[in-house]
């Protein structure tokens, strides 16, 4: 009698486990689909992200802090903060209700890129400024760093057409130049770079190219975010810092200067099931603004007729 | 399942028991009379405790234990398919060698069995607790300590508490597995007196290591040796004129 009960209990647990696994399998295969009547899942990046700072400034959600720097406003209530570009992509790919911003160079065809004020982000629209949300990707360094040796050679390489052709082929907006990089014989040394995760993958590709040209030189590229890039360049931990926002005079690296190596569009992305194709800067602002009040857009049906 | 008939004793025929490959009980037939004290004696490992535990199916808990035979208690075949083991154990109570009060209050210990059978009313429980403690002759010792932890009692008190706890289930038969072996002589004496009082209402089967105890309290005594029932008779007869050589050797202290 009691053993029957025990067996029933074990059976129940087993069934529950099986159900969990089965439902997990279902989730893996597909999801419940887009609904315009449901809330928008607003996805943002963590404070300190260059992508976030640039995006918020461009859509008009920034203010000056006490030291005069332009900083993003607080995130809208209920925001999902994804730590890193990969997490952003994961969420938008999976969640039919999501909207997010991410570096154009990162965006794959697993998500849908929206037109901003009718303009689709391409190299041309970013270059001519008709696409509204773009930002510089720069290296920061102390002027003395690039006076000689491997660092000088790497700096010259980044601004040469040899590097800029790679920038363009990787989907970023390049700088027009006709100067090719000249390989220097017997050059050796180590170059240490860290900072913005938005610039990191491009920089890794460029570094690999440089190492193949200058076999005596080793380049290490690490992430950490724009803030880390500035700090490391200032205190000498890294030879170059990477930032994905405008260099400000009062930031964490007052003794450093910046050089733009590429421009990146920030894409506004939604799930592929979402029927929306285009959005305005004003609408974006009302989605991301904590203090939008009655203008706030919380549900997709405000944007989709 | 049939109701237990309190006017009938215990009847076992053809009992064989194995622990895995090892046969611990061999072909035991035994009739135990109601409202008497029956003592099981014999050297360690002779099977007397094992046999006792077949009577309330506590051997069911032992893995690889296989039992054969017919066990009729109070007119009920206790190994029949439709037997409710819990009801059987309610009717055939057991007191263990080592006092095992639960780590809770005296009151909760006694009320444990009635509660498992669904009695919830406070007044009813109060009554059962008092009655059980009185029947176990320990009410006067414990009436002011009902809310205290049972673990704080002395060994002798703990064992009488365990008897009271068993009585609270209103059993017809009480199995006692060397109930005094862990106790001092005074506590042992109290428990023996208690058994003599209880036998007016209950059938008591006691396993004991102590032959004096058997002569003091038991109406009948059974001698077990190497898993067999060697001799079973009136206590006086068994101790004065044993029929079997092995019984004689054991009671005269030549082994065991």
């Amino acid at each position, binding site marked *: 009698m009691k053993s029957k009960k025990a067996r029933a209990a074990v059976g129940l647990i087993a069934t529950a486990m099986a159900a969990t696994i089965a439902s997990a399998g279902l989730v893996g295969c597909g999801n419940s689909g887009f609904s315009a009547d449901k809330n928008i899942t607003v996805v943002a990046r963590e404070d300190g992200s260059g992508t976030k700072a640039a995006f918020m400034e461009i859509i008009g959600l920034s203010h000056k802090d006490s030291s005069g720097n332009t900083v993003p406003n607080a995130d809208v209530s209920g925001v*999902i903060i994804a730590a890193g570009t990969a997490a952003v992509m994961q969420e938008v790919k999976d969640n039919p209700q999501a909207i997010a911003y991410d570096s154009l160079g990162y965006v794959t065809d697993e998500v849908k890129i929206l037109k901003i004020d009718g303009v689709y982000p391409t190299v041309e629209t970013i270059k001519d400024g008709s696409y509204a949300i773009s930002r510089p990707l720069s290296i920061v360094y102390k002027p003395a760093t690039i006076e000689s040796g491997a660092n000088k050679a790497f700096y010259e390489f980044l601004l040469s057409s040899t590097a800029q052709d790679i920038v363009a082929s990787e989907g970023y907006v390049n700088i027009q130049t006709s100067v090719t990089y000249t390989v220097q014989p017997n050059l050796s040394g180590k170059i240490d770079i860290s900072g913005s995760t938005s610039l990191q993958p491009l920089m890794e590709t460029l570094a690999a190219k440089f190492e193949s040209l200058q076999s005596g030189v080793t380049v290490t590229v690490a992430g*950490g975010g724009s803030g880390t890039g500035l700090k490391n360049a200032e205190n000498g931990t890294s030879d170059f810092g990477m930032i994905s926002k405008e260099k400000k005079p009062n930031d964490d690296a007052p003794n450093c200067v910046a050089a733009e190596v590429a421009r990146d569009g920030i894409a506004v992305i939604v799930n592929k099931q979402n029927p929306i194709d285009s959005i305005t800067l004003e609408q974006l602002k009302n989605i991301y603004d904590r203090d939008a009040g009655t203008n706030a857009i919380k549900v997709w049906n405000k944007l989709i007729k | 399942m049939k109701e237990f008939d309190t006017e009938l004793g215990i009847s076992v025929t053809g009992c064989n028991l194995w622990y895995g490959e090892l046969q611990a009980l061999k072909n035991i037939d035994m009739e135990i009379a109601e409202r008497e004290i029956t003592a099981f004696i014999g050297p360690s490992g002779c099977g007397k405790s094992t046999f006792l535990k077949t009577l309330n199916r506590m051997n069911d808990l032992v893995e690889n234990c296989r039992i054969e035979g017919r066990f009729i208690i109070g007119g009920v075949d206790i190994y029949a398919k439709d037997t409710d083991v819990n009801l059987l*154990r309610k009717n055939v109570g057991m007191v263990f060698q080592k006092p*095992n009060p639960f780590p809770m209050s005296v009151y909760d210990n006694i009320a*444990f*069995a009635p509660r498992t059978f669904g009695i919830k009313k406070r007044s009813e429980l109060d009554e059962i607790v008092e009655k059980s403690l009185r029947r176990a002759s320990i009410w006067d010792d414990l009436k002011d300590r009902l809310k205290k932890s049972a673990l704080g009692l002395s*060994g002798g008190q703990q064992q009488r508490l365990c008897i009271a706890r068993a009585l609270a289930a209103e059993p017809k038969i009480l199995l006692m597995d060397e109930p005094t072996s*862990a106790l001092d002589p005074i506590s042992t004496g109290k428990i023996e007196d208690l058994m003599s009082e209880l036998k007016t209402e209950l059938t008591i089967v006691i396993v004991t290591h102590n032959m004096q105890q058997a002569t003091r309290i038991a109406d009948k005594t059974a001698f077990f040796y190497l898993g067999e029932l060697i001799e079973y008779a009136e206590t006086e007869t068994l101790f004065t004129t044993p029929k079997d050589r092995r019984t004689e050797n054991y009671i005269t202290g030549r082994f065991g």
Partner: protein
Amino acid sequence: MTMTKRSIYSFISARDKVMKAIFAFAALFSVLALITITVFLFAGGLPFIFSHGDTFWGVVWDVHSELYGIMSMAVATLFVTALSVIMGVTVGLFTAICLYKFCPKKAVAPISHLINLLAGIPSVIYGLFGMVVIVPFIRDYVSPNGVGYGILSASIVLAVMILPTVVSVSLDAMRAVPKNYFEGALALGATKEQATFKVLIPSAKSGIFAGAVLATGRALGETMAVIMVIGNSPEMPNSLFQSVRTLTANIALGATEMTGDAATALIACGVVLFVFTLIINLTFALVGKNGKDKKGAVREKSNKSKNK
């Protein structure tokens, strides 16, 4: 001859001294580490807490407006921890009971090995599991507002993470309960379930509680897995399906990026977290002590009765 002997002895005693010094240093090292961490936290954090007292205990955390209020995150931390412990302890306790009494003996060892394996999985894997399985499941099938990230997802992930602790500690606690309690209950006509829930569990409760406290400590301190599933919006929790941020997540999110006051505010968060952990550890120490006392008393008693 005597010379050699003496030199051997002096060599041995010298080696003894060296070993003693090494042991002492090792012991000192861990004590020093604790002191250093404590000093770093309190020296860094306390002045900030006092100078920013008004906003620090507030609910608004907005680095860019220089508002460093931790209250919403402290509440979220406690909320998520409590929920995960409730879920984890319930499931863990039932698992332990199943392993102890109800499941076939042959299955016990493999199942407990599997559960212990859970303890060895890096927390980032739990986070990934949460992101890919739990969050979408909650979002698509459970959440009323289509949000998967948040309190419930984080609590479920944490509950799974603390399972091994709960199962192994409560299983040990139940195994430490004298077998004759359980047998005694059965002999009184109780069913296996009654014996388990009315005798076994109450007898093991101090051990089980200790397991719950240990689990609470783990849930409270977990960071990586939480960041990946909780949504991280620094808001006061008012729904299970809401993006909130725990103190650990706040520190981890900001640690590499923040400077100045914001960085100091993170250290102050660390102080608060440290105090939470301290409370948990003290509770654990107290519970452990009580449990031991009780058991010691029981053992002594039974020895006494045997000796008589």
